[in-house]
């Protein structure tokens, strides 16, 4: 699957890189075509799922996370967890105060 340079660091095989590339291209095609099928609220989630799959491929193989020190992956993922927290709470709060917003302010 992979050779090793004398540094002891991992070297990804070309074959693997190409396979991932093809997978990513397929993913892109999938995302685009998915939007032409009406699945209502589901569309966005499917789209996000595919996108995340692509992101995972890039992270694991192109960015070597699969062979890297786990802590590096942990650091990277922490950022997403925190982002999720930020998005989640802010969305929840804004949804709760929408009704007091004057739709066409400042037209009076």
């Amino acid at each position, binding site marked *: 699957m992979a050779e090793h340079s004398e540094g002891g660091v991992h070297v990804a095989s070309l074959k693997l890189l190409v396979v991932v590339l093809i997978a990513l291209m397929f993913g892109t095609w999938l995302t685009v075509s998915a939007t032409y099928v009406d699945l209502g609220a589901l569309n966005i989630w499917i789209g996000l799922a595919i996108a995340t799959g692509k992101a995972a491929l890039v992270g694991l193989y192109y960015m070597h996370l699969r062979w890297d020190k786990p802590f590096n992956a942990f650091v990277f993922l922490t950022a997403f967890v925190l982002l999720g927290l930020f998005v989640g709470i802010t969305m929840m709060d804004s949804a709760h105060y929408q009704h007091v917003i004057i739709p066409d302010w400042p037209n*009076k």
Partner: protein
Amino acid sequence: MTASRITDHLVGLAGALPDDRSFWMPPQVSTVAQGVDWLFHFILAISVFFFLLIVAVMVVFIIRYRRRGGRAAEPSPSHNMALEVTWTVIPLLLVVAIFGFGFKGYLDMSTPPANAYEILVDAQKWNWSFTYPNGYVDADLHVPVDRPVRLVLSSQDVIHSLYIPSFRIKMDVVPGRYSKAWFEATQPGEYDLFCAEYCGTSHSDMIANVIVHPVGEFETWLEKASNFLETMTPVEAGRKLYQVRGCQQCHSVDGSAKTGPSFLGIFGHEQALADGSSVIADENYIRESILEPQAKVVAGFDPVMPTYQGRLSDPEISAIIEYLKSLDTTTSEE
């Protein structure tokens, strides 16, 4: 010890306060005030206890274990699970309790009774205006005693915050949305209303009075105040409008230029406009400037005045015009 010096000092200071209030809190004039103050003093008690505990232990240790004559440290365990867990858990329980009380009190504050009396509050740099159900607008907040009052707040420009210490209520007034607050005053009198969210130059002057009327007197006050256009001379009515409708925040009557030109002696005189032309400040020009402020801006001023379209009635505008006339120092009549 300095701590005692400070407390002495503060006891002295407490004398500086009006005597209708405790050392820590302003008078309790709303139904929620008592609950808030109770929690405040509950937390205060806990805080004082722990503070004294910490300082006492500290002082005792300093005296007892002071390094003198090469006195070395005595051996003692460098950790003690039981002890540490104890002083982790005890504070935990206390703060849970505090949260509970705080949340309960907050629920009371944020849910107004159904039958509440409705007053619209309009905030703009840097004054408040209060609109009563009959459409009358006043610069002060007049409310009946022992009756829930619900405030619907909105802002013309930036964020303000309505704060009545004696009622223990505070609510930000955010442009582009309605915020709500409610209270039920418990004793007649006059109280302060502050703007608590920084809003620029005259933020600290964005103050109004809260007048709590005794039973029955509120209605008569509103009745009398509402038809000031009839009861007052046009000039007096105009002056009142000038004061309560936010004119005086930007237009002086002593000739000094503020955000906008002074009203002193402009009526009937030629005004140079920003676009280079000029105009005679007659009734029509003033009316236009009130309804379409951006139409003819006086030279040297920014086009920042909000329109009063639909916010001033014709009689009110006429009254203002009469007031401006009365400010005309010269006798010349074009």
